[in-house]
């Protein structure tokens, strides 16, 4: 569904010295520097996949999404989405995709969200029956009913984001690009949106590519991640593989006590639980030691938190 080959985007950014001298100098002599926001990346995404596109700020995530949706023209390389070249912005391509970016997008600020929905119905030429069905479904799933007729400027951030999502999905796109879809939302709304995205993916077999700094989003919504840093893909694979490759180790949590735990170096947590983080290749050995002496003990092996894994991934690669 998404094919990316050697995709590159280079921005030409003006450099200006600070202060009055810099401003005056820039009038007749302006210097530029080239910034490689995306540097010859390759990947592909199959139809119906949910993929997390992760990276620190300025890594090139949003630039890539903008190229995949046709907003930006690549400097080199190519990409195809559902068979189309995005930058051609053909009508059927635009009816196939959607892009949700943060909180600032397409809702008309001074009118109720329902007016934007009606406008999108006309712009995307959505048949009346399909529009009514989809709107009713989205209203229910995203709990929009109580604020659908209020001016957008009077809505809370969470309410606005839910309306943005509904506006972006009214035409039932097959490919969703979601840039920080839960940013600024409270925990309850985040849960609603995450569940909704998963249901949309399953119901319409839609392909979903999302960026997020919220690791709960990633853990809940995707099975595959692509890590990008300084415009280069650092990792492309499963979430579990990511933990294995970049995790500092696995954490063993034991409820109980015994000399073996002290000997192995377990530290006491709360509620009679003890914890030890070890490298993945030592897990079987340590488990054997514990179970030989404490066969009835309650024991769990936990992957390291995704935040830690990513911090480590980006930290290591930068060193």
């Amino acid at each position, binding site marked *: 569904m998404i094919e990316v080959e050697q995709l590159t985007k280079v921005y030409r950014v003006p450099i200006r010295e600070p202060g009055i001298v810099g401003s005056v100098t820039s009038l007749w002599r302006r210097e530029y520097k080239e910034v490689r926001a995306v540097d010859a990346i390759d990947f592909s995404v199959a139809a119906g996949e949910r993929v997390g596109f992760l990276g620190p700020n300025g890594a090139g995530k949003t630039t890539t999404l903008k190229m995949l949706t046709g*907003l930006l023209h690549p400097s080199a390389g190519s990409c195809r989405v559902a068979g189309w070249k995005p930058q051609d912005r053909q009508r059927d391509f635009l009816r196939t995709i959607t892009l949700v970016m943060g909180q600032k997008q397409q809702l008309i600020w001074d009118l109720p969200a329902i007016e934007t929905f009606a406008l999108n119905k006309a712009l995307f030429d959505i048949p009346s029956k399909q529009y009514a069905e989809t709107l009713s479904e989205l209203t229910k799933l995203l709990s929009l009913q109580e604020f659908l007729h209020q001016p957008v400027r009077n809505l809370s951030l969470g309410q606005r984001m839910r309306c943005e999502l509904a506006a972006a999905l009214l035409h039932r796109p097959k490919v969703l690009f979601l840039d920080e879809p839960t940013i600024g939302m409270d925990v309850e709304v985040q849960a609603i949106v995450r569940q909704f995205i998963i249901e949309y993916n399953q119901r319409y077999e839609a392909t979903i590519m999302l960026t997020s700094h919220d690791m709960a989003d990633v853990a809940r919504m995707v099975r595959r991640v692509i890590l990008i840093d300084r415009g280069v893909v650092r990792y492309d694979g499963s979430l579990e593989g990511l933990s294995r490759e970049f995790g500092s180790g696995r954490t063993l949590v034991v409820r109980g006590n015994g000399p073996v735990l002290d000997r192995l170096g377990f530290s006491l947590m709360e509620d009679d639980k003890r914890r030890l983080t070890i490298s993945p290749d030592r897990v079987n050995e340590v488990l054997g030691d514990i179970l030989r002496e404490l066969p009835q003990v309650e024991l769990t092996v936990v992957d390291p938190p995704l935040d830690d894994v990513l911090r480590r991934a980006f930290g290591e690669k930068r060193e």
Partner: protein
Amino acid sequence: MSSLWRHLKATPAMFRVSLADTVAYRAELAIWVLTATLPLVMLALWETIAAGAPIAGMTKIEVSRYFAAALIVRQLTGAWIVWEMNFEIRNGSLSAKLLKPLHPIWVWAVWTVSAMPFRMIVLTPLLALLAWARPELLTLPAAPDLALFAVSVTLALALAFLVQTAFGSLAFFMDRSIGMFSLWFGLWSFLSGYIAPTAFFPSWAQNILYYLPFRATLSIPVEILSGRLHGGLAWQEIGIQCVWVCVFGIIARTLWNTGVARYEAFGS
């Protein structure tokens, strides 16, 4: 379904929503409309000057009729998408329009036309006042000239819109495209017949102005409506309007197409 039909099909809903949006900004729009009433100020000024003796062959009543017509034409040809384009291109909110399967310029065109009913609401009391105080200034031309006026004022609106589209598209290439438009607007104010009828200019200047685009956005329909331009001569001038609509159509299209490939979608 052809592209034109798709755009036309979506237009009623776009018009309705644009109108609702325009009304939401009614205070701002009212200020814009009131600033377009400059012809009434010019009317008072030039009427006083022409009271002593005709200026360049125009009597006091002809000067007054000219500016009364200019008031109407200015309202019917009002466009300010250059500001909107500049804002949306520079802050990245153009992205939302680019993701829709209708051309963004069509969306702005509908938005421009949808402001007309509101402009008429503001214009009506001004005309009513003028009709009460100076009925002789608002005499309608004969039916054939009225038809010519309808054609000419439509072309003037199209040209004003395309000129602004061209200047608005410069925002893809430079930070201060509005500065360029301000320069154009300064020239336009003097050369379009907005401040003074072009008949007041020396004949050599009138000969040059005849071939420039400024008159095509204001003076030509004003002269038809105020009864100074008829028949064959009017058609000739409408021909010039058509040429400028085509020229600025090509310029706007070229700048847009080249610019959109450079769009960097900042801030969104």
